[in-house]
């Protein structure tokens, strides 16, 4: 029996196994692809915390792949896109088929099962450009030959494919925060979730006979801390927090601000229909055809807005706040202007957690310190 649920990312109702039921608040992330340096610090933070056990060797809940030739596992998106076939948007409404609507007879969704070897070579395609750079190459925006970094974790979807795929209902979405979890006691290792997830973030562990996936570091999130992949991100590209429902965004909630108010952060492959909750600021140097394929028709406007960010001190301020603290920022405020202003992050009670300057100050120390009797020179 199929239910009709509303998917705000594709602006229509769609088929899904279960009735619509949104959490009280939704764990969500914003990733600014323009800032990512593909250092994989996020990858190793997650690995150390969660997947260093036996049987988890090739399991990377977080990975950063270079598009277009990077995938983990191998070809995960191009293969699904190939199965789904070319699809259409009508303005900002998706009129093509979601994976649920394209499900073959007897299946819950359109999916495929990777081979074991597909999980090898996690950094396949690192730094590789889409096409050969010409001799005497000279690019401005958009780049004629390009590549960019795409950071991937479980999207803790509103309509998870893994959850719908599981015949034992071992996967559930927490009502209090929207985190999707795979019950390690109830799972029997059928791997329907592995085949069903379009992002291939459910992974089987032969040693335990169960599948595992990103858990949104809920032991941290429950205590008001951001996830491991976020607090270890030195590119300062990630923000974790709780998103409000699409129809009631709160302007000073950082996630709502990026996703629903500025609409500068977009879901990955919204056309698959799972309503993922990781939101990307698209790369501004990549041609529109490709960014639309990944992030939907909103990509064009998001890119233009990011290019003009310096005209918006709120946007700039919030982008400077990423990485400033390991605590969850529930609301923010920007004071002052571009040169001497600050962006302040607050906790759930409205108490200030941290503040950062929009521009780091410049200090000129006195040349001679009488008290210490020393000349503070630059060249020593």
């Amino acid at each position, binding site marked *: 029996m199929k239910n009709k649920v509303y998917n705000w990312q594709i602006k229509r109702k769609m088929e899904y196994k279960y009735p619509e039921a949104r959490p009280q608040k939704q764990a969500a992330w914003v990733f600014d692809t323009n800032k990512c340096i593909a250092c994989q610090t996020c990858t190793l933070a997650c690995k*150390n915390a969660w997947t260093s056990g036996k049987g988890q060797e090739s399991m990377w809940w977080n990975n950063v792949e270079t598009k277009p030739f990077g995938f983990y596992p191998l070809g995960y998106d191009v293969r699904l896109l190939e199965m789904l076939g070319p699809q259409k948007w009508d303005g900002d409404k998706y009129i093509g088929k979601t994976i649920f609507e394209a499900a073959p007879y007897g299946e819950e969704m359109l999916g495929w099962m990777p081979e074991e070897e597909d999980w090898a070579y996690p950094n*396949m395609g690192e730094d590789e450009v889409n096409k050969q750079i010409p001799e005497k190459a*000279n*690019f401005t925006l958009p780049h004629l030959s390009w590549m960019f970094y795409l950071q991937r974790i479980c999207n803790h979807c509103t309509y998870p494919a893994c959850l719908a795929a599981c015949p034992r209902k071992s996967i559930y979405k927490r009502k209090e925060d929207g985190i999707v979890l795979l019950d390690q006691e109830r799972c029997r290792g059928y791997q329907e979730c592995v085949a069903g997830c379009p992002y291939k973030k459910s992974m089987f562990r032969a040693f335990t006979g169960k599948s595992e996936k990103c858990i949104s570091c809920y032991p941290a999130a429950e205590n008001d801390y951001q996830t491991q992949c976020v*607090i270890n991100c030195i590119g300062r590209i990630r923000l974790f927090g709780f998103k409000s429902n699409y129809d009631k965004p709160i302007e000073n909630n950082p996630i709502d601000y990026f996703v629903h108010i500025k609409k500068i952060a977009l879901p990955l492959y919204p056309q698959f229909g799972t309503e993922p909750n990781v939101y990307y600021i698209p790369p501004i140097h990549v041609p529109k055809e490709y960014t639309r394929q990944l992030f939907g028709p909103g990509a064009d406007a998001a890119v233009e807005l990011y290019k003009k960010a310096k005209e918006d001190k709120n946007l700039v301020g919030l982008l400077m706040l990423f990485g400033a603290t390991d605590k969850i920022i529930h609301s923010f405020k920007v004071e002052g202007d571009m040169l001497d202003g600050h962006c302040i992050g607050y906790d759930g009670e409205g108490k200030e957690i941290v503040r950062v300057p929009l521009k780091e100050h410049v200090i*000129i*120390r006195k040349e001679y310190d009488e008290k210490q009797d020393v000349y503070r020179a630059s060249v020593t």
Partner: protein
Amino acid sequence: MKKLTRKKFLKLSTATLGVLLLSEPLLASLKFVPEIDNPLEFYPERDWEKIYRNQFKYDSYFHFLCAPNDTHNCLLRAYVKNGVVTRIGPSYGYGKARDIYGNQASHRWDPRLCQKGLAMVRKVYGPRRVKNPYVRKGFKEWLDAGFPREENGKVPAKYLNRGKEPFIRVSFEEAAEIVAKSLLNIATTYSNDSGKELLKQQGYDEAMVEAMHGAGTQALKFRGGMPLLGATRIFGFNRFANSIALLDKYIRNTDKDHALGGRLWDSYSWHTDLPPGHTMVCGHQTIDFDLVTVENSKMVICWGMNWISTKMPDGHWLSEARIKGTKIVTVACEYQSTSNKADEVIVIRPGSDPAFALGLANVIIKERLYDAEFIKGHTDLPLLVRMDNLKLLKPQDIIKGYQPKELKYAQLLKEGEKAPPPIKQRYQIMSEELRHEWSDFVAWDMDKNSTVVINRDMAGIAGNLAMEGEFQVETVDGQKVNVRPVFDLVKEHAAYFTPEVVGEICHADKDAIVRLAREIAANKASVLVSVGMGPNHFFNNDLKDRTIFLVCALTKNIGFHGGNIGSFAGNYRGAYFNGLPFYIYEDPFDIELEPDKQSRIKSYYKGESAHYYNYGDRPLRMGNKLFTGKTHMPTPSKAMWFGNSNSLLGNIKWHSDVVVNTLPKIECVVVNEWWWTASCEYADVVFAVDSWAEFKFPDMTAAVTNPFLQIFPRTPLNRLHDTRSDIEVLAGVAKALGGLTNDNRFVDYWKFVYENNVQAYLQRIINNSTTLKGYKIEELEANAKEGIPALLMTRTYPKIMGWEQSNENKPHYTKSGRMEFYRDEDEFLECGENIPVYREPVDGTFYEPNVIACGATGLIRPRGPKEYGLAEDDLSVEARQVRNIVIHPAELTKTKHPRRKDGFTFIYITPKFRHGAHTTPVDLDIISTWFGPFGDIHRRDKRMPWVGEGYVDLNPEDAKELGINDGDYVYIDADPEDRPFRGWQNKPGDYKVHRLMLRARFYQGLLRGVARSWFHMYVATYGSVEGHENNPDKLARNPRTGYQAMFRYGSHQSTTRAWLKPTLMTDSLARKEYFGQNIGKGFAPDIHCPVGAPKESFVKISKAEDGGMNGNKLWRPAALGLRPGYENESMKKFLRGEFIS
């Protein structure tokens, strides 16, 4: 499952009960097997969630400092559970860093760490930790036999099977005793006339033997790698070398005034990190800036500097500046990581950077876009050059009996007078002798229409001086001489480097050159040019600096927070701690034993460039000339001891040649390590030292790219193995030497180590350093333990070099006190480099190697090959280094590299990347798996040396022409004259080990004829090749030592070699000394000396094996159509974005 207790149930109102019933099916919670209606809504049994909560819990945490040579120095937080560090995270303490004045950094600095730091959990606890001290079997036999020697003093070959023998475990005391005995024996053997005679018989260059002055201790080489990384434990090697004067006294019974300590090998220049032209232009090591300052600029040009991959914790400053309007430009020889952050990407041919800079200068000068006021005040461009002898015009040439005026802003030292320590210095300092030697300079005053004397007090002051034109002066002996300003010469020279010509030379878009030049000039004091090691690793690196500096100086982009030049590599500036002389030069004959008292200074060790050791332990002698200046002259290397540095042996340039040809001449090789590297493979004694997470002694460091002062805090983690601190190792060997020589001063020298009070040494350094005075080590360490650093107190925050010169008109550290583009020293005139000419790379080029491209031939007078007794057409590898042949810039691309006729087609570059800081910690499984496209943690293809491996990136068209597929194994061969090592033709066994074989990857970001491998991977050794061929699973692991290689055969260093450039070995260049404001001339380690050129390699690439497994031709991803050059139809659609419309 939400349990509904009886109490709660009774408390509920009917309404809430109703809601409860809808959201939590009561029936479900009563059933034995839970029914789940809607997993989006409710899930009954959630007790299992404790599994992950328990996994995340920790008992405690502590902080430690991670400091490989990446320049960042990150305080990492180690989370401990049951006494084991289970994971690592950031400290979030950077926003709390303060100085003594209350200045504070912001939390925009946080977090700071990287994936390599996180991987430390697997290195600290890893299987290849050096778990205890080791001695190589053959070395121990030599020692036990009483150090037998052949007639000429050489060690019999049977004791020299390095890399092929097992190691014997010894205690720390035994190892210290062994090293002490060896140093004593070797120094004794080579002391006095008898020692001289042996060295001559062994074939060492006479000049090198003379340079020892009869002291065998001068044949002992020491090095703590990038010593700024540890003020006491790594700079401790310097201190140890100083104490070796005691050993000389013991051996030769000299008095303390004539004793000689050991020799200290360089660091910054050894790594080819020093941009040698900086010293020529501004007189000190480098002008650079803390990377944070990028947000003060309007444009940043990442010039051969892959910022986001090599300066990762500071990558966000770049992207954040971009958000706020800074334009990012990359000028590089590929589409690299940072290119994807760039607003403009310009690709040029590797090594052609000086030509590109001259192209920019051409436009700026032609269109008169330069800042005349700035260059008149701050550069030598208005100074006059005599056109008869091409020397700068001096006042004494034209003014009879000229006496230079007293300088107000300089301190002059009388003969025999010593400079005050840096803590007491205010002005620049030089000897009266040098002041008179360099004298003053002359410019043409346009108002008076005559000459005017310019001295260094006038630095920064622009008069109405002529920039162009030719004038005539009369010398004191009546001659009429034509003179022209330096600018006029530069203008004539740059005129030949039009955008068209430069576009051809550099394989670059000529319009991009014009636009870039105009944009730089339009943004005075607002353009940051961050130059990297791409261009610096070519032979023409000093010319690259001089020409890029020219562009920056012309456009007033020097010395401002928004506009400056920078060079970025390793963590070199030990000078921040200019109080170090009180530690490294403490007089070993007069030791201060009271911790709170000041020590006395007497320097006994001599610095030396390690490039001579790299080059075969010889200076540069070619034809009839010795090109290595007297002040640079090395001594024979008979023993070497180093720590914190795999680049000195394991990952050395010309690695194969060093191992096969040079190492056998060195009698004792001692290495301090905590991880088994290739340096350990070839060592005689390996001391096991603490990992950074286990420090039991504090230490101190700072950074060239950020403003923080960092302490290595002591950690509560118990030592896992039989290790000691590096400083304990030094103290231990000193103790053993004290016993052998009966000289307790050896022991006193390390007193505070034995008393566990290294803080005393640290506080002395702090009290005497201009950037540190006012701090207390106890407070600093207490903060570090909390994950909070301090701030280095230079003049500005962020710190930038050149600030005082451009903003307060203080002089630069050159002869004139200005930035200098004209070099009239004899050595430069002889090379044709008095003006900043363009030279082709010396090997990595399609064209004639090292040829001078200059159109203004009247302005240079190079000595040609014939004058050196060499044939003019001798393009052999060695002779090239000194070959001064000039061609017109427009003719350059018609020439050919001599190996092109032999099928050599690739310029092979080996840059740094994100997965390693040098070789740290690339062989860890989780790093290796991510290092490139061939990482497979399950290692399904048993040919792989490890779970990851070295690879070469090839332009697909180049590869296809050679019949090479993506994923294939290939051979890379450099010039057979001397690579992989001299004499390879007669040593097939060694050749097999050292010939480079690796995987090929199709990379569309490279131009044709350019191949690229990363510099970090663990090289193949004799033991690893043995393992690869004999281990049942073919793992390239040494069966005796466990060393893990990432190549089946050879390495990226199979194609590199040592290079010595004549302009870097002068005795006449003026430069600031390492510590303080003193200016001297000639050799200075890390400042003026050879730097090598590791990206210089012109190679041939050929297929070795198919990439596919089990008889398949293609490796699987290519066969599936998912690789560039093999795209299946879906991939093609995907690339074009056609799955959506």
